[in-house]
């Protein structure tokens, strides 16, 4: 059954609009949230929260020019990520002995190779998690959303040259951390 809402949109039209918006933006918003949070599980949860808010404000979203919508979604996502960081900080103050992260499944049958792969994967995860959010955000948008420096610059409202610098810094930081890990 189609209900009319105030915008003259039927519920089917609202759902179609939401689906189009979701399909166009979810990967980029998810990549942005990984950049902000440093954790893919948290990013997926925050992605859902972000789009719950988009769904609740779909009439407002419909009035935003298409090329400006990403900024609106990033603003919601950024606020949710900040709230999540605050919650995590409180949890970390109250909890000790947090469980180790889940092991990374290996496709090889060799246990020593599997251990090596798992250790390397964990080291890379840690190195990226420890990056400052501004470096991690450009890196995750580049890797996960497959955006170039021009597109990232437009999305974050920073010059493309700054994006290239941050990408280079992010890679250097990761390489440095992995190098230190190997030295130990």
């Amino acid at each position, binding site marked *: 059954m189609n209900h009319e809402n105030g915008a003259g949109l039927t519920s089917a039209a609202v759902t179609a609009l939401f689906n189009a918006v979701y399909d166009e933006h979810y990967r980029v918003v998810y990549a942005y949230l990984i950049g902000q949070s440093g954790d893919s599980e948290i990013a997926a949860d925050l992605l859902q929260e972000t789009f719950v808010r988009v769904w609740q404000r779909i009439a407002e979203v419909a009035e935003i020019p298409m090329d400006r919508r990403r900024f609106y979604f990033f603003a919601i996502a950024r606020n949710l990520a900040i709230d999540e960081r605050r919650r995590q900080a409180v949890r970390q103050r109250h909890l000790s002995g947090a469980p180790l992260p889940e092991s990374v499944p290996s496709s090889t049958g060799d246990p020593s190779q599997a251990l090596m792969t798992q250790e390397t994967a964990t080291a890379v995860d840690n190195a990226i998690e420890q990056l400052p959010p501004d470096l991690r955000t450009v890196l995750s948008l580049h890797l996960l959303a497959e955006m170039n420096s021009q597109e990232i610059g437009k999305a974050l409202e920073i010059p493309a040259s700054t994006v290239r610098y941050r990408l280079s810094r992010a*890679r250097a930081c990761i390489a440095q951390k992995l190098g230190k890990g190997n030295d130990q």
Partner: protein
Amino acid sequence: MTDNMDNTLNHLLKDWTERHTLSVSRAEAIRLTVTAGSAVPSPLPSVAVSINPLPLIWWQDFSNTLRGVLHQTVCFPLPPVTVP
């Protein structure tokens, strides 16, 4: 960074990307949770400006609830109340 280190880092970052990419099934699950959940899209403000249907809807709901209660109590079929 040497070319060799650069290649190794590219390989590691590709692996990280594969492990952290949101799966299509997870993305679909999130979409369904959002659209089928309890969250309801908000109407535009023009609803409140053009007409205020609240009293009529309240009266219709109240009348139909009362009709249901009466029907259950006395088992007497009553016509539904509609707002003109």
